[in-house]
């Protein structure tokens, strides 16, 4: 695992053919902070997260994890990253325990089942551990998927629309979990549309539109009105 306390994007762009999905985005965030990527559909939030997750290479610019780039650090860097995507990255045919044990083992856990049982207890799903994930509601799958992303205690946590499908209690539990991660010194990057749930949670908000960073605000308050004001100006 590579330990780092800063995540830096320097003039990052990503093209898909002639389409420019991300255009010269730069930011820096630190351990113990939550960065929100906010913007309408197609703004480039998921593409940015995919590049931070090393799943896509930037067409231009660099992403630095401390002093390393993904090319330099490779597999060791991926051990420090946890990703919860818009899709849940779970095998529906496997049980919740099998899914978590599989991913724990992939990340080098010596006892995958023990790690899976602890994660299921955190998700409040111990009684459904032996049920296939295909029988779960969207909210329950989302909770299992979050535990999958965090099972190896990553330094950098990347979350794409993590509140999707969660009821009020589960969403509040997720907000508390994210605050806990921040308290433990993780770097959290969160892409969301749910401004109400993100209210008061973000240390830094970056507003994206058409692949460009429109504005970046530190410790934003009244997120919804800030969002409307910034996006109104950007139109």
């Amino acid at each position, binding site marked *: 695992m590579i330990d780092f306390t800063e995540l830096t994007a320097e003039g990052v762009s990503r093209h898909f053919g002639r389409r420019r999905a991300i255009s010269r985005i730069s930011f820096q965030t630190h351990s113990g902070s939550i960065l929100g990527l906010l913007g309408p559909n197609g703004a480039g939030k998921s593409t940015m997260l995919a590049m931070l997750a090393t*799943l896509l290479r930037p067409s231009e610019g660099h992403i630095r994890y401390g002093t390393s780039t993904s090319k330099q650090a490779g597999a*060791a860097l991926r051990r420090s990253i946890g*990703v919860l995507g818009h*899709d*849940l*990255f779970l*095998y529906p*045919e496997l049980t919740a325990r099998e899914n978590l044990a599989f*991913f724990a083992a*992939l990340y080098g856990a010596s006892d995958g089942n023990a790690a899976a049982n602890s994660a299921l207890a955190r998700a409040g799903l111990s009684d459904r551990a032996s049920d296939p994930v295909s029988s779960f509601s969207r909210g329950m799958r989302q909770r299992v998927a979050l535990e999958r992303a965090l099972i190896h205690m990553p330094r950098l946590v990347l979350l794409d629309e993590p509140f999707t499908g969660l009821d009020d209690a589960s969403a509040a539990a997720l907000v508390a979990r994210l605050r806990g991660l921040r308290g433990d010194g993780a770097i959290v990057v969160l892409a969301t549309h749910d401004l109400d749930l993100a209210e008061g949670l973000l240390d830094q908000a970056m507003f994206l539109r058409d692949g460009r960073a429109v504005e970046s605000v530190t410790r934003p308050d009244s997120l919804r009105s800030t969002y409307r004001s910034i996006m109104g100006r950007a139109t």
Partner: protein
Amino acid sequence: MIRTAWLILRKDLTVEVRSLEIAYTTLFFAISCVLFFAFALVKEGKAPEDGAAGILWIAIAFAGTLALGRTFERERQAETLRALLMAPSDRPAIYVGKLLGIVALLLGAEVILVPLVAFLFQAPLLSHPFWLSAILLSGTLGFASVGTLFSAMLVRARSRDVLLPVLLYPITVPVIIAGVRATAALLQPDVELALVRFWVMLLLALDVVFLTLALWTFEPLMTD
């Protein structure tokens, strides 16, 4: 790398044992293929010379294409391929794990196909079990090594079901030809083992070339 490949192989086999989806579709397709050819070609109990070798490899190639498509379709449905790519091991380990799963499935299908072809075409396929195993193993590995790479590469392509055979068959023609010729050599009344050995060595050489290229290109193809 070995541990990651083993974990992926074990996971794939667990999913398959639970659903039996690929096993059923692959076997149904392969057995149907063999039966249709048997009805068409075997007349008055006589099969065309070397027909069994060709039919066996056609069934393996068609069934293999079906299995390759479905294996990666599973990884696409919940984008689990992305989660595998995030694992902290060399990314070619994912390729190796998926390849071993497909080879295991195809070898399982061949265990049923070989006696069926031998029976329907009255071919002495089982008279040299060692050489037949060597031919099937090396041929299946060569076919699956290219197929696994292409299936992974096409996983997000919209017309992947059409593109897979279009890309796969021209590249794997040498493997199929060598497999057919080696199997046909085994079916002769006087088996020339030197000839069989030549074809098996050619299959192994093709395996080495295809595997090397696939391991080399897997990561760039999956991240760009």
